[in-house]
């Protein structure tokens, strides 16, 4: 082969190689930018399951916050809740967190984001935009209890938890609203004897069951029961902690949650209660939206009552300490925070409370500045309870790591169906806590 031809061919090959490399590089590069300064829109990344927050924000963007929306248009993105943590980690790793986002399934992730400077200092910004007083004090104290004393999230939801009960079934069977754990057991016995399933709970979710353990712990050991576990001064395997798991396991052993509680999902548990097939349902006040919906609620909103988690005889806790939470926390990114997002923050704080309550029957931790009539009696009861509650407590997994939260939720069904003993349950969760 002549020398020149060979050189020419080599040149062609080299340039072809270089071109294919360049093509590969551009293909790998993708379109996603890493920087996020000066956002073009007010992006809200929420979870698919929660429709309230995004529709209420959309309502605001067309009404009270129209000016803010014109300056920085609202854009909504959603991701299934189970994939939220992964998405946030990915975005945080690329420094591409949106202006506003649902902040992870466990407070631990939000704290991690805040530690690496990815979350805006919401308290400071609220002060700057004159809106700090728009948050209900109870909601602020709940957020601070969750996030190590810092206001890291906005209370788009504010829930208290307790037992919803079927008034009609209670009256028919001559059962008084139980004030103590023993009375609760007696009420459950009575319902069970009449062929009514005493409790409905989702074992597939797990947390509706572990909430009963924490409820018992707060009543028996006092409001700091789980803080002590978090700071290491107590362990879940201590006998007084195992006792709570034993009490809940005993309910399961008697069959009070019905058959196959591990396969009951959230909607089925809700449906069992709202169709009168169970007498009591431990749930957060977010269930008011379902209770108010006649399509779902076949027993009628007027037949649903709300009672706090009962007292434990000789316990250090009190019945008026309600477990509370802010639902799935929503927070603001620090990199995208500027005057326009600040204006949005101010406007949301002033108007979200009324919009959410009026349009969605959802109780938030913002003040309701326009009077709204309650949908039903039980909503009034819950709202009164929230505004009068003096001290709130958290839930079982609130101060746990993501791992311990998952382990606790996935093992809970075993506790009530007897495949895991109370001691084993507490050991498993404690081990996951000790891990990290």
């Amino acid at each position, binding site marked *: 082969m002549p020398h020149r031809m060979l050189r020419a061919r080599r040149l062609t090959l080299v340039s072809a190689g270089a071109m294919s490399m360049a093509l590969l590089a551009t293909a790998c590069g993708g379109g996603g930018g890493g920087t996020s300064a000066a956002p073009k829109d007010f992006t809200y990344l929420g979870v698919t399951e929660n429709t309230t927050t995004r529709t209420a924000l959309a309502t605001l963007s067309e009404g009270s916050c129209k000016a803010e929306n014109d300056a920085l248009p609202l854009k909504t993105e959603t991701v299934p809740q189970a994939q939220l943590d992964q998405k946030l980690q990915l975005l945080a790793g690329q420094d591409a967190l949106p202006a506003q986002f649902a902040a992870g399934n466990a407070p631990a992730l939000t704290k991690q984001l805040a530690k690496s400077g990815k979350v805006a200092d919401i308290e400071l910004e609220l002060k700057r935009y004159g809106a700090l007083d728009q948050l209900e004090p109870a909601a602020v104290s709940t957020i601070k209890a969750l996030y190590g004393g810092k206001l890291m999230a906005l209370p788009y939801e504010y829930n208290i938890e307790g037992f919803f009960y079927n008034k009609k079934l209670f009256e028919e069977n001559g059962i008084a609203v139980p004030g103590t754990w023993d009375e609760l057991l007696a009420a459950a016995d009575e319902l069970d004897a009449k062929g009514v399933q005493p409790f409905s709970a989702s074992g597939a979710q797990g947390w509706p069951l572990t909430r009963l353990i924490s409820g018992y712990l707060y009543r028996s050991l006092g409001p700091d029961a789980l803080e002590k576990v978090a700071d290491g001064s107590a362990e879940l395997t201590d006998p007084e902690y195992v006792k709570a798991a034993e009490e809940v396991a005993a309910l399961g052993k008697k069959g009070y949650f019905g058959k196959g509680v591990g396969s009951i999902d959230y909607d089925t548990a809700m*449906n069992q209660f709202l169709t009168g097939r169970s007498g009591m349902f431990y749930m957060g006040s977010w269930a008011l939206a379902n209770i108010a919906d006649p399509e779902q609620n076949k027993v009628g909103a007027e037949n649903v009552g709300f009672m706090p988690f009962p007292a434990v005889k000789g316990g250090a806790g009190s019945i008026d300490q309600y477990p509370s939470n802010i639902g799935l926390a929503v927070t603001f990114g620090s990199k995208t925070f500027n005057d326009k997002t600040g204006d949005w923050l101010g406007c949301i704080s002033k108007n979200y409370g009324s919009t959410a309550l009026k349009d969605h029957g959802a109780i938030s931790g913002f003040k309701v500045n326009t009077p709204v009539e309650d949908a039903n009696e039980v909503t009034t009861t819950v709202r009164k309870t929230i505004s009068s509650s003096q001290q709130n407590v958290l839930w079982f997994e609130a101060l746990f790591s993501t791992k311990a939260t998952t382990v606790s939720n996935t093992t809970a069904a075993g506790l009530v*169906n007897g495949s895991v003993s109370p001691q084993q349950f507490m050991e498993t969760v404690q081990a996951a806590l000790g891990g990290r």
Partner: protein
Amino acid sequence: MHRVLGDRRAITILLGPALLVYSLIMLVPMVWSLGYSFTEGNSIEGFTGNGLDNFSRLLDDPAVHDALWFTLKYAVVVTAGQVVAGYLLALLYVFFLKKASAPVRTLAFFPVVLPTVAVGLLFQKLFQVAPQPGPVNSLLNAFGFESVDFFGSAGSAFWVLIIMDIWRSMGFYAVLLFAGLVDIPDEVLESARLDGASGPRLIRHIVLPLSMPVLMSSLIFSINGTLKVFDSVVALTNGGPGNGTTPLTLYMFQSSFTYSEYGYGSTIALLLTVVCLLVSLAVYRVSRRDNTES
């Protein structure tokens, strides 16, 4: 042609791009992941080296022991089930149904085509106990037995998973083994019959040895696939109850992406790679020996 393939530069040019792509998307991430095994942290906090901590944790972690045991148990049972059921189906096609086997083959292959999530949901409903008892429990009730909460304990959930996965994949192995069986020359079978071999003896002494290579390929296929099981577990039980049906793959996924412990997740991935490698080597050795013998 020989001149082109004998030229080292030509080989480089022909293989280079493919090797480059393969390296970029397979080898680099593998080495990268190996590197992560010596770190802790995540994409939010950044990564810091922690020496061999992940490996010592791996040795002590009861969840890893459970997951490894589950993975091996699952792989052995499902592989045996898949290949045996597939082989029996293939024998049925070749020796019993003969020319009429096409519709049955299609039916048995049908579950292979179904998405895993759909099959998972189907089996959840089949074996469910609440809110309404599923067909299996209804059948039990009809015969006067109590309902069983199949997903309530790790033992029964394991067997539902096994049944589901064998049902799902036996059609595939049946087709694979069928291809091997039709390759057996008719003359051989004919002469064996003339010599008086029939039924089980024909299968034991003629069909089985002659289909050994394809049977071995199926075994290797199956064991490697089942060691890496992920989707069917997620779809049916999501590893529950507790971690009762959690294989290594799911635990690796949870560690990395749910608990954001990327380093530890990578260490579990390494363990899984080593297990797969060892099992493949073992099966290869056994199959080589068998081939030389026959």
